[in-house]
């Protein structure tokens, strides 16, 4: 077994000896065991032994990065020299920096040791549950795994973080079929730290399977209207990710194209919306311990009661723009629930659609989005009237946050995020 800490510390010393003024390094070893099901049948059992060494050096305000997956002395020495050479090739930029000395951490979290036999049993059980309870579902692919990683981060400020994670992950792609008629495919997944619960009871898997069975006879509808979209937690996650990317991330703040660039501490959303980026939430499995620049991770509010409180910025872009850095570099999104049940949210829709998945182009920096509502249902006068296909939705990511109809009181955790259902008005919904 490689001594990961010794390799990371030795690499930092070598980078300093080669002239790095500031440097950081992460050495990582991992073991993964993975079962695959394809076309409804077990197909593959994988065992992977991996490692990586990531180096970053700053010399004369110039930064370089190298990543390799070898730990032998010759490879590490070459990587150190290469990293310095890459840094020396770069342009001077005083914004590059790393965190000052933090309190050292040694963390073991999740399920570091795999129970392979129970994992296999749970996987067989899931396949059996799906076949028996959802007979119209074909499992296109199921990937179930356990991965243990031990990573050690060191930097020239003297911080050392030694983190061991163990995570079980379940990912299922499936579609519903009756004869030659089929639904769109759908993906559902969850990560967990234990095998106590049958997989079908985790996350939204059971509801997703039931919904997809109801989508087999999906049909296009005629016409176009402006109405409500009710986003499922999984679909909401992709919208929130686009909102952060379009308005609050490094690239758009650095090039100045963010619509929110001058909106810190101002209202950008309905006051019922609070979005935490909160890795320390006890529902998040194996949360981030330290940031990409060597700060200990802490939670923060992206939006608090509709007010933009923080951009999701790296230390580099924070230094370039003068905005505060984000206190973690994860995307552990926790959205505050509302006070309406999902059932009532559906009942309150005059005309709209429940969107299970959005297949759209990259929204412009102005937030305009356009794409196909997949795995979706039409709702008329508070009732679900059928599954729909070939339906396009158009809107604006910034506008929808101010056109909130309701947030569900139910939330769903998939081990990575905690999300409710959310409904928004003013969306252009076009049939065939």
């Amino acid at each position, binding site marked *: 077994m490689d001594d990961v800490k010794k390799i990371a510390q030795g690499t930092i010393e070598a980078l300093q000896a080669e002239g790095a003024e500031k440097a950081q390094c992460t050495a990582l070893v991992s073991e993964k065991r993975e079962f695959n099901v*394809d*076309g*409804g*049948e*077990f197909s*593959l*059992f*994988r*065992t*992977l*032994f*991996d490692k*990586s060494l990531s180096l970053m050096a700053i010399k004369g305000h110039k*930064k*370089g*990065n*190298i*990543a*390799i*997956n*070898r730990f032998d002395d010759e490879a590490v020495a070459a990587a150190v020299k*290469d990293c310095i*050479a*890459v840094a*020396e*090739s*770069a342009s001077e930029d005083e914004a590059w920096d790393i965190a000052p000395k933090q309190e050292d951490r040694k963390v073991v979290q999740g399920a570091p040791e795999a129970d392979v036999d129970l994992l296999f049993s749970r996987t067989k059980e899931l396949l059996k549950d799906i076949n028996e309870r959802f007979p119209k579902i074909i*499992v*296109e*692919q199921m990937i179930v795994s356990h991965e243990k990683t031990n990573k050690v981060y060191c930097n020239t400020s003297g911080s050392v973080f030694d983190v061991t994670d163990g995570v079980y992950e379940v990912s299922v792609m499936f*579609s519903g079929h009756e004869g*030659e008629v*089929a639904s769109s*495919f759908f993906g559902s997944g969850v990560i967990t730290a234990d095998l106590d619960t049958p997989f079908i009871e985790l996350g939204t898997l059971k509801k997703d399977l039931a919904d997809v069975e109801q989508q087999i006879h999906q049909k296009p509808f005629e016409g*176009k209207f402006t109405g409500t979209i009710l986003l499922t937690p999984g679909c909401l996650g992709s919208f929130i990710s686009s909102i952060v990317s379009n308005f609050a991330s*490094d*690239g758009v703040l*650095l*090039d*100045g*194209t963010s619509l929110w660039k001058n909106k810190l501490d101002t209202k950008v959303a309905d006051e019922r919306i609070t979005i935490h980026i909160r890795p320390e939430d006890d529902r998040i499995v194996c949360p981030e311990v330290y940031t990409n620049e060597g700060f200990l991770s802490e939670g923060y509010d992206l939006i608090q009661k509709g007010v933009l409180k923080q951009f999701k910025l790296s230390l*580099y872009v924070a230094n370039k723009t003068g905005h505060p850095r984000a206190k973690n570099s994860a995307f552990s999104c926790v959205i505050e629930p509302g006070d309406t049940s999902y059932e009532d949210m559906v009942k309150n829709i005059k005309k709209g659609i429940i969107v299970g998945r959005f*297949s*759209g*182009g*990259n929204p*412009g*920096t*102005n937030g305009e989005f*356009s*794409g*196909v509502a*997949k795995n979706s249902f039409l709702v008329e006068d508070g009732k679900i009237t059928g599954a729909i*296909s*070939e339906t*396009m939705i*158009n809107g604006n990511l910034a506008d929808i946050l101010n056109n909130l109809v309701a947030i569900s009181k139910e939330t769903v955790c998939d081990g990575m995020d905690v999300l409710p259902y959310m409904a928004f008005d003013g969306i*252009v919904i*076009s049939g*065939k």
Partner: protein
Amino acid sequence: MLQDMITGKRPLFVSDVHTELRAQVNRKRRINLLQGNLTTNVRTEESGVSARVYKNGVYGFSSMADYSNEAVQAVLKAATENAVFMDSHIKKGKGMFPTIPFATQALNYQVSDVDQKRYIEFVKEIDNYIAVKYPSLASRMVIMSEDSMEKLLSVSDGLDTHTVIPRSYIYLFLNTETKDGVPIEQFKPIGGFGNFSDQFTDPALLFPEVDKLYDVTMQKKEGIYAEAGYKTVILGGDLSGMLAHEAVGHTVEADLVLGGSVAAHNLNKRVASDLVSMVDFAHTYEGAMAPLPVYVDDEGTPAEDAVLIKEGILTGYMNSRETAKHFDMKPQGNARAYLFSDEPLIRMRNTAVLPGKSKLEDMISSVEDGYYLTNTNNGQADTTGEFMFGISMGYEIKNGKLGRAILDTTISGVAFDMLKTVDMVSDKMTWSSSGFCGKKQPMPVGMGGPQLRCKVMIGGR
């Protein structure tokens, strides 16, 4: 170049199973210059060895980041044990797939490296040209990306090979906004197969490409929103290539056919107008090298073209050796892995709609009210063949003449319905190869096609 610790290890293979032993190194070099800021300056290498063993209908696989004789023995042992575990629990009882005669194929290309400084200087020269000549742009980004996959493969039957696929690209991104404040982004990838030093010798040679991209960006700045609805359009070559890959190609990958894709019920049936033929080219197109040539796949199968649609009839799938046996088809070299730690999956290589006989100008003049859609910035499809493509550039067509540029929009449809509406196919082929296909693992792929006249849903505002 990868040292050969693979050849000669066949005596370590267990009998009565199929075994693949693969050593691999993936190299990446990347420079991002955003508004003159060097935001990415990275070199990475990932190498290691893996083994996959097939026994009675199930696979065992193992990989290690080490590349040594000990690692070779360890992954062979672990992969074999995993196959035995699966076989003992699952008991599919499927036999071996047909053997492929033994042969060898030697390396046909050498990867060469470049100092990071040279990449940076090259990119900076282009960035400086844009900054000086076009100061009114809202922002700009220039990216250099070079990657390669080098593999040594030894199989219990089939071809032992040493292969490499290197790619090098410069990506240009120009941003501005309309008078109403609508952001406009245009991008263009330049490059293809080969080392950076083979593709790019002088940054000044790329300046005309910058100028062309700027002109298009300015046209789009004056653009209008497309009118939403079911419209007659001419899809440019980038879009027909995307269609070939996303909306049809994935549905005819045999593993997805077994998962219930729309192609499962359509073999030997009409799925397109008789003007449409589609092929997944292995390595050669019209006597020249295809964009990303594959000569042997990672199961040791010699690669040959897979004909998918012939004159509108769905004629075949893309297969691994296992699915080829299931469907009683011939494996044609589509099983490929991205990293040393990845198992081979059924992947496309160079998938294209074949050109026809029409001239683009005749196609445009034939459209009374529609659009000519020239560029896409992303595309998605599902196994029903329903697709969505982002349109990043296009023009309205009114009374047979090209009109104003249009702003970003999307198109959608169902592939096997939409392809039946194709009534003109141009004689001009466009290839692209700068992206990655995503399917459990990423994979560099080529795609291409001519202009197609057809009907799709176009999104408006």
